[in-house]
């Protein structure tokens, strides 16, 4: 999903990938990505919300995975 949002080949995306340094996301891409993550992983029972402060701490793919796990997503 990150591969699609950032338009990079999926093989390039690993848990350690840094969103800006490795995957070329700029500041607009990052906001767009958080919106896509919220939409993709929210369910009727569990609305995922990423505040701007939360978003500022998401630097790598692993950070995103950790955030989702700590907000009830598996």
């Amino acid at each position, binding site marked *: 999903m990150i591969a699609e949002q950032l338009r990079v080949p999926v093989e390039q995306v690993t848990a350690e990938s840094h969103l800006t340094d490795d995957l070329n996301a*700029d500041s607009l891409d990052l*906001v767009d990505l958080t919106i896509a993550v919220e939409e993709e992983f929210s369910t009727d029972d569990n609305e995922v919300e990423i505040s701007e402060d939360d978003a500022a701490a998401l630097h790598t793919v692993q950070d995103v995975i950790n955030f989702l796990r700590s907000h009830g997503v598996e």
Partner: protein
Amino acid sequence: MIDSDRLNQRIVITGIGPVTPIGIGVDAFWDSLRNGRSGVERIQAYDATDHKVQIAAEVNDFDTSDYIDPKAAKRMARFAEMGVVAAHLAVQDAGLDLDNVDLERVASVVNTGGGGVTTISSETQAMARRGADRVSPFFVPIMASNMASCQVSIELGLQGPAITSAAACASSIYAFQDSAMLMRLDEADVVISGGTESNISALGIAGLANMHALSRNNDDPTGASRPFDKERDGFVFGEGAVVCVLESLEAAQHRGARIYAEVLGAGRTADAFHITQPRPDGAGAARAMNLALRNAGLDATDVDYICAHGTSTSLNDLAETIAIKTVFGEHANQLAISSPKSMTGHLMGAAGSLSVAATALAIHHGELPPTINLNTPDPDCDLDYVPNQSRRSETKVALANGFGFGGQNAVVALGAIDR
């Protein structure tokens, strides 16, 4: 073949029609500019409680009834209505009697950035709630971006070319070169020229807010737009239209018109860099200023004043300052520079013509409008921005800058008629 006199004609501004958050009509507009009055307030167009951005520069008391038939107004989005009213005001201000000109030779160039985005937003919601049958039959002609120029043409009876350039925040600087081209290429004798923008809606502001482009200084609306200040945190979205009358110097003198200023030339470049960020070294902007000078036959040291793009974003104001230093070298320290956006907010598609109008008025009245809210100087923005108070100063030659999303840079050079 185009006659050489026509190609080289001198082009002047004889009428100014502002519909702005700081005043409607040239007298109210100029009075606010020279008195440093802000038009920024808490948003009234919709309920912005709990939104990230709760301030904007709206045009209060905008009433079309003196200028537009109610049935015609119903077929216009607000951006087109403002363009039409501004056009009427400009023609009146110019003392131009449209019954006595060849209307086939009068062109309409009222550029815009977004056109009818607000209309798209509301009709989309209507369709989602009530289905396709409930979409207005006027939806397309209301929201289309060419409709400001076209409604001006329809309402004023103008049968010369009606054209609309989209150049985001540079759109209505483009208008002046677009208009000069029409005149020089023998497509028109008079041009009703300027820009309009009216998209203060939850959708438009949300998009810009999520981009972090807008100031979030919701508790201090009049202080939020602070170009070149160290504490600047983004621009304030505005609405409005500013339209001017352009004609040849010869025609203006022949009919005894009052002349505000001459349009000396223009320069346009593209950054080839980013959809929203300017080149950090200001190279594209610098080149546009240099091209404007060359097109106008001017040296950098001829310039007295620059009406800056000065949006109050951290990126633009810095890049623009660097660009000015690149072009002017030592002379940059002798220039006066100010940004009307400190008072009016950023009128997007109308920002350029607002700057051109402010510059023409500054030349005409011998007084420079200030950059207000300049309380904490930024060490990297260390030029003379006419802080907080207007200043009596004779301006013979000036530039007006406009730099748009997508890297469109446009600069117009203006001069006093008796320089």
